[in-house]
């Protein structure tokens, strides 16, 4: 209903609302990843699974290590791969999202601050981490953070997975910062002016008027980033974190590195990530449609 004010109430002196020109505003609805993921039909999933499972069966039928032996091996290692490995992927994804969301919201609010001394560095940090390769960030954090910290007499080791959380949280933070900024500047300026004319302070306007209106708008893109992040957690295997891919390789080594193991083990990793992220993507798209209709 409030589509009009955005077009007609641009005559304001308030510095708060001027969007930065140098990066496209309001990428809130950019759900490419979720949209792509959500478009898999259940039947195509079944087909992919079938191909994954059947192909090595045909190709390696004559080899002395049979496909069913490989499946047996997978079955034996399953509790280890999932219970220790995939669970760590999930723990890392939750922790990263937590850290990244808190930091990202602060940074996003910083970006729309009327004080240039806050807005400019917030913008810079956002752009920096939004456009850096995740793996490079991971390596930097891994090497920059100490492997233990001393508080008083106690020495606390920092496990690798925790360092990985900080490394992954940087790009998540930057992207959530953009979501927050986009959502805030998508609220018509008339809302700010109405609140101003009623003597609300800037903070009151932000927390009582603006954020409640755009909170829902932020949920789908936030979930989109959660799915992207979860899919990206195997990156940390390159740093030696014992997540699902690392443990799968350890398991295959313990099974004498038969090449026939590759497809079942990594195929399984694909499937479990898919099974976890697919419903999230579907739900994201549904929420987005629902909120779009309401506005």
């Amino acid at each position: 209903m409030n589509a009009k004010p955005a077009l007609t109430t641009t005559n304001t002196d308030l510095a708060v609302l001027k969007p930065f020109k140098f990066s496209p505003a309001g990428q809130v609805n950019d759900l490419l990843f979720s949209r792509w993921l959500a478009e898999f039909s259940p039947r195509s999933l079944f087909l992919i699974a079938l191909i994954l499972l059947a192909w090595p069966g045909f190709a390696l039928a004559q080899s002395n290590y049979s496909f069913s032996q490989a499946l047996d091996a997978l079955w034996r290692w399953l509790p280890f791969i999932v219970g220790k490995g995939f669970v760590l992927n999930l723990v890392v994804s939750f922790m990263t999202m937590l850290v990244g969301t808190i930091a990202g919201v602060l940074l996003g609010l910083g970006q729309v601050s009327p004080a240039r001394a806050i807005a400019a560095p917030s913008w810079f940090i956002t752009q920096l981490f939004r456009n850096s390769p995740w793996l490079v960030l991971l390596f930097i954090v891994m090497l920059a953070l100490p492997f233990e910290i001393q508080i008083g007499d106690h020495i606390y080791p920092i496990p690798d997975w925790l360092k990985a959380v900080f490394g992954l949280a940087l790009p998540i933070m930057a992207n959530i910062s953009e979501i927050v900024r986009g959502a805030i500047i998508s609220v018509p300026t008339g809302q700010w002016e109405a609140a101003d004319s009623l003597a609300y302070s800037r903070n009151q306007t932000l927390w009582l008027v603006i954020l409640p209106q755009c909170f829902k708008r932020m949920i789908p893109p936030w979930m989109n980033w959660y799915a992207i992040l979860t899919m990206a957690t195997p990156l940390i295997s390159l740093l030696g974190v014992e997540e699902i891919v690392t443990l799968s390789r350890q398991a295959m080594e313990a099974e004498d590195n038969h090449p026939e193991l590759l497809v079942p083990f990594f195929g399984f990793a694909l499937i479990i990530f898919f099974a976890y992220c697919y419903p999230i993507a579907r739900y994201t798209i549904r929420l987005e449609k629902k909120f779009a209709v309401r506005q």
Partner: protein
Amino acid sequence: MSNSDWTPEQPLVSIRDVHKSFGELEVLKGVTLDVRQGEVICIIGPSGSGKSTLIRCINALNTIDSGSIKVEGIEVNNPELDKLKLRKNVGMVFQQYNLFPHKTALENVMMAPIKVLKQAPDEVEERARKLIKRVNLVGKENSYPGELSGGQQQRVAIARSLAMNPDVMLFDEVTAALDPETVNEVLLAIKDLAQDGMTCILVTHEMGFAREVADHIYFTDRGVIVEHGPPSTFFTEAKDPRTQEFLSQIL
């Protein structure tokens, strides 16, 4: 609330030689006018003549480059101006209503007195319900803005402003976005206010309404006041050709 040396005998709003530019474009080129307590003035003029800019300067939504605007003795053109204090005394209603869409009609009216003036919620609610009744919206208390017609939303917006107990109300073409059928209900609400003694500054294109309620009418064009006078003479004795042309188009 007001400055100690201001008395009700002096103009409530006093605008002196106000200049305002947006970049290269000078929108206000020396505007001077006074509004006394209880007075209703209407500002008319062609699109782009600076009417909105002028009244937005009164509650410091826009800043001015030079000149002076005093509201109850408070100088608005002052870098140390306490904007919040000023705006507690000046209500404003916009063309696009700008109600808060996530709050019901009643909540829209109650929110500012509770959050800004820190008044007791039950007291505020009682007053808010009276205001809703005053703008003829009993039964719509729990409707969200999206569920109300334009005219209804605008009346909620008026009630929302009144809930702050302002000393002066600014109206910026508040009926311009409405369907013709609903214009009247909003004008009636404003008329009721005006007759009740509220000081009102209206930007409007409703000439019949201006003639009826205004104490004084100002015609602006390209950033200056071209002509002004009480409605009894303004409409019949306009001397400036620009005023005559404008009136002939609109009447």
